[in-house]
């Protein structure tokens, strides 16, 4: 007996020591005294506790509404963390309904001379800003903030859009020590849960019963002797089950961005509740998009999408004219694509639905992504080709992981030729069939057939985009060089060149090129195919450049690739969590001939190198050959894949380290005595 009570005491004691009070207002001195977040000392702030409660409430006049209650307790360690004391919440409005923000309660806590001092956020310091037609924003910043402060705020967002629950972020840019997220949904609503990110999130599932009370008014007419009418009130009620998901999580690390990442939000831990169907008693089931298949179908059936492909009359005459002398499918595709690309001007509105509609856009010669590409599809179809729309999510929009209509924000065209799908986007003046803007290269898209069925197709370029550079160089005794350069830009390299430089005057372009290459002086500049799509851009010029070699004593030292040497490793971080995104596979090849000055001999040239990344993902070839007074240099870097998983990071980093090391190795010339 005695022993037992001892245990109880000890347990109680331990429990008390570890107990943190997560009720609003119960901020402890320990929390205020905390100097750093021990698990990540670089954190400028951390969320000590977070509670998000999503639930449904029945309102007799309007039905169910969704209530999101948020409570967060945040610790500010230093001034860098002050940004986390400004909080904003976006509120959606549409179809005459709008979300509302209420019950905000917020305090800042500081420790002053051992005492906890509370400062309340005043209502007059809360701001509401109209962001756009669809969104308002509530914003506030905490009063009396200092290094070491703890802040607490709680508020409620009420939404009439009961079929939609906002994606819940489970990871912030600062660490979260402990969080509890509870989502309670009445049985009438069926949601599917989708998880994103690299952290595991398993909910505890429970149920609870609920009751809806109705009061119904009945009016009965009198009969017989008693005339007049009588009103009675009857109360009825319905019992229903609420399904509850509870996520209890601890020590969520901060999400940190890294270079060469597609879009960091793709890796943020979050849960998405995706509506499947709604079924009320005595009502038919109302189904919502549940699979990518049905998402695509819903989008396709919209008047601003599928119908737009149906309109044909507005271009009929022009198309007939265009196709007069076109016989093969290939010719037709090229002709129609070029026609739309030339005629139409992209107004920068991105979206999968048409903006002003294809007809109006055609007339104005300008339009949104959907205006232009759905028009392209319609014309291809009219020409008897098998063309279909492909829904895409742009890089900014993130990789679409769960089927929602918002998952896709862009549409391109696909046409079948010899059993292959050719992808096209006519919004950019320099795209080509199977060459899409880089913003649209985002893993995969969804092609929708005429019958509304759809399937996923990859949108990752596989073809190598090459760049080839040929140089003929004369090295002078003082270390200056002169010579000729010829450079060929192919495929994506040509596309990027055109987008970047075609609207710039040649003088500006050359000024920039000269200044970016340490004072290169260019003459006899010539460029071919700047506007001829499908062909490589060929640039050639004569140049002079000072001090490309070090003349030290009776020796000359120079880097074989001259001003083209890769002298910095792009991968500087020690380790990496996310995939490395090169956007497209690429190769850089240099062939350089150096003629050394008279009176000098070659006393050293760097040796050959031939290294590869695992699985043929990349290769570096480097070779120097000396012959009489000439040195021939060949350097070739191939990156055969657009995207590398994080597990390949170390190999990539080593690969580049070797390239830099090799390319900076010097040639040594010495004076003939």
């Amino acid at each position, binding site marked *: 007996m005695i022993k037992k009570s001892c245990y109880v005491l000890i347990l109680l004691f331990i429990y008390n020591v570890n107990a943190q009070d997560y009720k609003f207002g119960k901020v402890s001195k320990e929390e205020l005294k905390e100097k750093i977040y021990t698990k990540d000392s670089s954190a400028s702030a951390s969320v000590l506790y977070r509670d998000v409660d999503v639930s449904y409430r029945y309102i007799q006049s309007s039905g169910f509404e969704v209530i999101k209650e948020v409570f967060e307790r945040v610790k500010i360690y230093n001034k860098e963390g002050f940004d986390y004391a400004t909080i904003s919440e976006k509120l959606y409005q549409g179809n005459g309904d709008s979300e509302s923000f209420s019950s905000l309660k917020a305090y800042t806590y500081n420790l002053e001379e051992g005492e906890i001092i509370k400062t309340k956020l005043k209502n007059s310091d809360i701001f509401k800003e109209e962001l756009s037609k669809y969104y308002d924003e509530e914003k506030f910043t905490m009063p009396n903030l200092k290094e070491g402060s703890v802040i607490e705020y709680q508020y409620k967002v009420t939404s009439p859009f009961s079929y939609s629950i906002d994606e819940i972020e489970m990871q912030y840019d600062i660490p979260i020590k402990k969080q509890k997220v509870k989502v309670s949904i009445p049985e009438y609503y069926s949601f599917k849960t989708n998880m994103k990110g690299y952290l595991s999130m398993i909910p505890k599932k429970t149920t609870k019963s609920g009751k809806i009370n109705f009061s119904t008014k009945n009016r009965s007419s009198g009969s017989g002797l008693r005339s007049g009418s009588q009103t009675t009130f009857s109360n009825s009620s319905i019992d229903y089950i609420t399904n509850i998901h509870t996520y209890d999580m601890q020590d969520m690390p901060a999400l940190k961005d890294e270079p060469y990442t597609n879009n960091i939000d793709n890796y943020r831990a979050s849960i998405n509740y995706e509506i499947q169907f709604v079924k009320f008693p005595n009502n038919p089931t109302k189904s919502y998009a549940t699979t990518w298949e049905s998402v695509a179908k819903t989008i396709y059936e919209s008047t601003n999408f599928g119908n737009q492909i149906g309109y044909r009359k507005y271009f009929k005459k022009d198309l007939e004219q265009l196709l007069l002398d076109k016989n093969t499918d290939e010719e037709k595709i090229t002709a129609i694509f070029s026609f739309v690309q030339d005629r139409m*001007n992209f107004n920068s509105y991105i979206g999968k639905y048409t903006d002003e509609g294809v007809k109006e856009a055609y007339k104005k010669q300008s339009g949104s992504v959907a205006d232009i590409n759905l028009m392209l599809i319609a014309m291809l179809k009219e020409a008897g080709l098998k063309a279909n729309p492909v829904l895409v999510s742009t890089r900014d929009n993130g990789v679409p992981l769960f089927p929602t209509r918002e998952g896709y924000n862009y549409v391109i065209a696909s046409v079948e030729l010899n059993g292959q799908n050719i992808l096209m986007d006519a919004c950019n003046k320099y795209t080509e069939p199977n060459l899409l803007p880089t913003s649209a290269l985002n893993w995969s898209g969804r092609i929708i057939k005429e019958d509304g069925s759809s399937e996923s197709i990859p949108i990752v370029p596989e073809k190598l985009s090459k760049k080839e550079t040929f140089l003929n160089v004369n090295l002078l005794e003082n270390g200056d060089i002169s010579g000729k350069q010829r450079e060929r830009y192919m495929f994506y390299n040509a596309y990027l060149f055109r987008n970047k430089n075609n609207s710039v005057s040649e003088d500006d372009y050359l000024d920039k090129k000269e200044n970016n290459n340490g004072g290169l002086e260019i003459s006899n500049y010539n460029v071919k195919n700047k506007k001829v799509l499908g062909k490589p851009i060929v640039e050639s010029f004569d140049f002079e450049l000072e001090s490309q070699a070090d003349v*030290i004593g009776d020796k000359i030292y120079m880097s074989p690739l001259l001003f083209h040497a890769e002298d910095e490793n792009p991968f500087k971080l020690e380790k990496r969590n996310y995939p490395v995104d090169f956007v497209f596979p690429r190769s850089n090849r240099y062939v350089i001939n150096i003629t050394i000055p008279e009176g000098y001999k070659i006393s050293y040239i760097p040796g050959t190198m031939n290294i590869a990344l695992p699985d043929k993902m990349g290769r570096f070839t480097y070779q120097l050959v000396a012959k009489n007074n000439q040195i021939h240099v060949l350097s070739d870097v191939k990156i055969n894949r657009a995207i590398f998983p994080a597990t390949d990071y170390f190999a990539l980093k080593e690969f580049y380290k070797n390239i830099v090391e090799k390319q900076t190795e010097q040639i040594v010339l010495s004076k003939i005595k």
Partner: protein
Amino acid sequence: MRLLYLLIPFFSISQDLDFSIKSIDEKLLNDTNAVVRLDEMKINILASDRLAYTICKVVTVLNKKADENSITSVSYDKETKIRDLGVFVYNAEGGEIEKIKKKEFKDYSAADGFSLYTDNRMLYHKYTPITYPYTIAVKYTIETTDTAFFPPWYFIPNYLTSIEKSYLEIRYQDLDLKPDVKEFNLDNLLLEKSDDANSIIYKAKNILPIRFETLGPSFRDIVPRLAFRMKKFNLKGEEAHVEDWRDMGFWMNEALLKNREILEPETIKQVKELVVGVDDNLEKARIVYKYVQENTRYISVQIGIGGWKPISAIEVDKVKYGDCKGLSNYTYALLKAVDVPSYYTIISAGKRKVDLDKDFSRLQGNHAILAIPYKDDYYWIDCTSQIHPFGFLGDFTDDRLALVVTPEGGKLVKTVAYLNEENYQKTSAKYSIEENGSIYGEVKMQTGGIQYDNRFSIETKSKEDITTYYKDYWDNINNLQIENIEFSNDTQEVMFEENISIKATDYASKSGNRMLFEINAFNNNSFVPDRYRNRKMPLEIQRGYLDKDEFKVQLPKDYKLEALPQTIKIENEFGQYSASYEHDASTNIIFYSRELFIKSGRYSKEKYSNYRSFRKSIAKNDNAKVVLIEESK
């Protein structure tokens, strides 16, 4: 009045104007992205608190680079109304192709990107060009009760833009309302001017484009422009009569600052306790500034007159945040509570030094700081910074005329300047090169003046950011690893010290049995300004600096020195550069010392290429290599 508006047709420019591209004078088409066909502003001053102006701007856009003209954005607020807004687009032949009405504009919050909240809004429209060239015409009328900010007039709106016709007209009911005009850079302009009892008119024709050039004066310093002021003006309901800067100070005291400094007795008691036993005003100010820095932060909220009037000290004391005005006024209030005089000060902040216009008092500037008079001098503090040392402004507000609001009215005073050698950096390092080419080093850097300002905030950054910073700072060292970092910040002397140890593999590159490395490992300056085939602007170096470097380099055991770079010393009007190398064979150590001194100043455009050659020599010498050769065993 109303009715009249209705009778005026929706749009009424251009009937007699030819907007076809053919009609543009050939001269105006060289080196330009856009030709302004007509830039017209007609201002009507109805009263000291009523102003209406009509803008009509017609621009032919020649290429994509001038596409900013396809955007029309007009801002407004409670005091300002936009009327008769319309945009017309014409093709190359001058035929109308599109008409955009006010209701097609989007209405946005004019969020400035740093304010928590602002009540300014704007109407916005973007036209999508279908071919080039095209001509876009914008017309609207603004009616406002705010006459404090009279719209300025720029004869050239932008770089690489030529102007066919520029027309400015100001009408006033009586001479009492006639505004003062200040002209800037009008020398090379073909100008017609008239000035009478009812109107002021400026007309200019065929203005050739100017181009941006690096290290040149700022746009506003070279471009022909006009500034206006009304001596009697109205700012969000506050009336003013201001003849000079002295009056401006009086008015600000009265209209914007009066009673804003009142504090709760409790706060006054607290701040008095802070300085108990301290007599010297400067010491007191130091303590109060430190208190403000530790207890407040910068948050901007701009509502109504709040753009000029600080939130009250009581309010700031409660929430412990404010914008530049609120925090300056709060600090002023705290200082007043401990009997230290200080003056609210208006300034144009930014890396570029911009003076308030001497002898032309009007509401100007974009920032507020505090001036503390002490022994015939001023000490300046920026209360929006939580980290700057007391009395140190840095390059955001240094060396420029600011309006100091004293009880005796306003005064224009130049803020503290940081001159040439005061902006110093001293780097001393010991490093070794290993047989495998690796480098190990210990570096000490001390900075002062503007160089201090560039550096000291690194201390407040996260570990990752600090590491990234040094990897960028020493991007000449590949595979750099930061081993240890120590900072010390002497806020009294305003000197920052960084002690860093580093290592990196393959710093020296090998060529057979030789090894080469750049001896200037830690202060490699490769800056060479752009080359211009035909430089048009003078050369301007806003701030000078002095770098001194001493490195002691231990060479690897089995290598001996084969070649050292030549000792060099260059001296010219821009400054001085020197580098020397000394090898001690017994210890196999090289002593490297370097000095780079750049003077601030303005030089003629002909001097630009000399300066460029100077920088080229510096860059070349900073890259100079030492060659080692393996000793045969």
